[in-house]
């Protein structure tokens, strides 16, 4: 079964500094990978996805993520964090093997951008 690990509960970063949110995954086949963001009292919003092709994926709000097959990672990055980026970030993976329709989410990372 597919799974995702987001090793850090909370990430603190100063405004203007680079932001990295870590994600590693486990699948039997090839992965489809997603990042979602959840602002307070809101539903999850899609940020970006990796399906195939270029390992560097660009998404909404200046975020990008790099797929690294050898390290089974899909870390989310933003070159210069904004206070408004403070939110809960979820990594998710779907396994292409076995006809599984399920998307497995990590526990989420709370990002706090300090002014």
């Amino acid at each position, binding site marked *: 079964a597919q799974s995702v690990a987001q090793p850090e509960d909370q990430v603190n970063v100063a405004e203007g500094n680079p932001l990295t949110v870590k994600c590693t995954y486990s699948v039997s086949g090839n992965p489809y990978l997603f990042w979602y963001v959840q602002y307070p009292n809101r539903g999850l919003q899609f940020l970006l996805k990796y*399906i195939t092709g270029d390992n560097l994926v660009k998404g909404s709000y200046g975020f990008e993520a790099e797929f690294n097959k050898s390290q089974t990672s899909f870390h989310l990055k933003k070159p210069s964090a904004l206070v408004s980026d403070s939110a809960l970030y979820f990594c998710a993976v779907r396994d*292409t093997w076995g006809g599984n329709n399920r998307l497995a*989410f990590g526990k989420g990372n709370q990002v706090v951008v300090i002014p």
Partner: protein
Amino acid sequence: GAGVSQSPSNKVTEKGKDVELRCDPISGHTALYWYRQSLGQGLEFLIYFQGNSAPDKSGLPSDRFSAERTGESVSTLTIQRTQQEDSAVYLCASSLVETGLREQYFGPGTRLTVT
């Protein structure tokens, strides 16, 4: 266009009562998902509907949980004889034809509190 909507936004119920949660997906989205979000636990998959296919119920935590979907529209999640551990935010998501490539669009959730 309209996004995924859920009702009620908040529900407080007494232990042992039944509750019904509603989800209106985005028009034209054939895939519909229910998740449960508990504090510090990330998103837990509950059930998945795809068109007229049999739903994937493998995530339902007990036989007190059930869900229905009318065609490709409204879905209801029913929890019978609620317990305090059922307290959580219940999220609904929908996506276009499910190939695993499409991102899911989430509703704002229903916050369920069992007293």
